[in-house]
């Protein structure tokens, strides 16, 4: 299945920094490096969303939100 690509804009200062960094890695281009980093960020964000809410933390924060007037 072929991958479709879109375009985004990045500040040129940042591109220069990434170009320097890419020289020391196995990535062949800025685009490849940026794609990898963004995939990791999105994966981390999705994992955060999948977390199980801790009952203990919930009870603690509920108590605090009641004291602050947010919850009855």
């Amino acid at each position, binding site marked *: 299945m072929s991958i479709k690509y879109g375009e985004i804009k990045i500040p040129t200062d940042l591109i220069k920094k990434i170009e320097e960094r890419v020289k020391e890695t196995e990535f062949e281009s800025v685009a490849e490096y940026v794609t990898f980093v963004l995939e990791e960020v999105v994966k981390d964000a999705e994992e*955060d969303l999948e977390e199980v809410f801790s009952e203990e933390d*919930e009870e*603690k924060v*509920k108590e*605090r*939100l009641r004291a*602050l*007037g*947010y*919850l009855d």
Partner: protein
Amino acid sequence: MIVVLAIDALEYTMVEEFNCKNLMQKYYGKTNISEFSEPRTMVLWSSFMNGKNLEKEVTALGDEGMWNTKFDMKNTFFDQFEKPKIIDLPGFSYTKEQHDKERMLLKQFFDAKSDKEKTDIRAMYNNHAFEHHRKIKQEFSDALNGDYDFLLGYFSVADVVGHLNFGNRIMMKMIYKDMNEVAETIKSDYIVLSDHGMEKIGIFGDHSSYGFWSSSVKNLGNPKITDFAKIIKNEQ
């Protein structure tokens, strides 16, 4: 124009961690809110604008009454200005419907039985907060070009989103960087002030026991939130 960037729950340690230079300015530090029994948003901003501790008076109204508090201009230090503009400040120009819905969604989140339901409600809660934030940013940006001698923009996003997402570093960093960019658009001297900061309870956020201040003009030390009425008056 004297400008105050009032950012609810702006946390001192995060401003430093995310290197928000426009929020730090030349001088920055913590505010002293130790005289208050709890760092309640409505109590702190009410005390700020009246220049005195109003914890007893505001909490006597009960939770519902507290959130509906609305002070007259003449009771606040804003009255010393000819053309003040105050955006969305709790206890003064708070957008009631917006913030009532936030608390309703917060309650729904904690009443939800399943993690899936909590995740869905949290997404609605966050979207509601960010949509409001975009409106406030626009209003503040327009006001910077207006004919006012005092402008206060109150931004609730760090507090509202923080209560259910403070443990999400990426989301909080995005919010702090956004507020840093808002500060960059201010061309006159300005003060950054928060009522309290925030501290983690797992993924959630609680109010911390100090606020944040910054100024490009003067090192204010460890001021009380009630000192700012005089501090701002002296800047006139």
